[in-house]
């Protein structure tokens, strides 16, 4: 009994050592995953940011067909990187809407003419209210919304070529 107790501090140390070693080896996930995945899109209504495109509201996502909701900004560099992939998705027939974060009409116009325009609607979110209500922590982020307005998937960061299959699968599954 007594010799068994003698090992206790050592075992406690070994346990602590194990926890620390595991923590050091496991890569840290610094991404903040939205807790809104699996829930209904929060109700919002954003005005248009450019004249040629309508603004965006929740009703647009309740038309029975899954859509992408892209959170982006003209001042965001990874958004330029993902633009070709969004154009690819558009060419595949995926409907894409967007929320422009802290942006202006002329800046968005310039961004779209430089990088292509994959969007059907763009909502103007000047003070990030809709971004916050989505549980999004930066730009770009892309949400897959099913035909009934439920958030199915959140993609954090720019969409790369290798991310396309996952998005397509989520869109397919959301029908």
């Amino acid at each position, binding site marked *: 009994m007594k010799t068994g107790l003698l090992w206790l501090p050592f075992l406690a140390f070994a346990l602590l050592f194990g926890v620390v070693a595991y923590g050091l080896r496991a890569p840290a996930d610094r991404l903040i995953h939205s807790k809104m995945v699996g829930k209904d899109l929060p109700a919002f209504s954003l005005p248009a940011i450019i004249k040629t495109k309508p603004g965006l509201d929740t009703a647009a996502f309740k038309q029975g067909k899954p859509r992408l909701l892209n959170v982006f900004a003209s001042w965001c560099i990874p958004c330029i990187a993902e633009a070709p992939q969004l154009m690819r998705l558009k060419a595949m027939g995926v409907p894409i809407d967007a929320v422009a974060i802290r942006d202006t009409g002329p800046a968005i116009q310039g961004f779209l003419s430089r990088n292509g325009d994959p969007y059907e609607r763009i909502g103007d979110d000047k003070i990030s209210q809709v971004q916050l209500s989505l549980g999004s922590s930066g*730009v770009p982020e892309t949400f897959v919304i099913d035909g009934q307005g439920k958030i199915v998937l959140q993609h954090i960061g720019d969409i790369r070529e290798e991310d396309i299959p996952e998005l397509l699968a989520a869109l397919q599954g959301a029908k």
Partner: protein
Amino acid sequence: MSLLHTTRHAGLVPASIVPRELRPVRVRNDGPRNKSGVTMGIVLGLFLAAPAAADSGLPPAALANTQLRDPALEAKAQALMVTLRCVVCQGQSIADSDADLAGDMRAMVRQRILAGETPASIRRWMVERYGDYVTYDPPLSAVTAPLWIAPILLLAIGGWLARGSFKRRRRA
């Protein structure tokens, strides 16, 4: 703002990235290469190169950096803001952070306090979206329980050990 491992997300990119090019200013090409001119060019380049933008150019939201008129309401908002985590910087509260999104979160908090919402309800709204991660005052759950239980447990073990050693001393 801490430098994080990924640059895939503008929310995680520090405000100033290393300038894209440090092109030296063209030097007069007379005689042997003018070494100090090149150095000058690089130094000039360092000053002239614009950092890549990772923040918007828009002015902060109305209540981001403006206190509420009513000191009692402002105190309420402030108390909440120091316990909400900035989701961009991740190591700072939204009261401390200069990030655009933190400013927008402050504006939202003040707006809602002004509208009569309770701090608890605003915190709940944030936690619903970002998880417990967003609050510096985490609720008791299966994950946080060890934090509360461990000190009590250690204190109990300490008491038990102390009792044992006092007993031995009495016997001696």
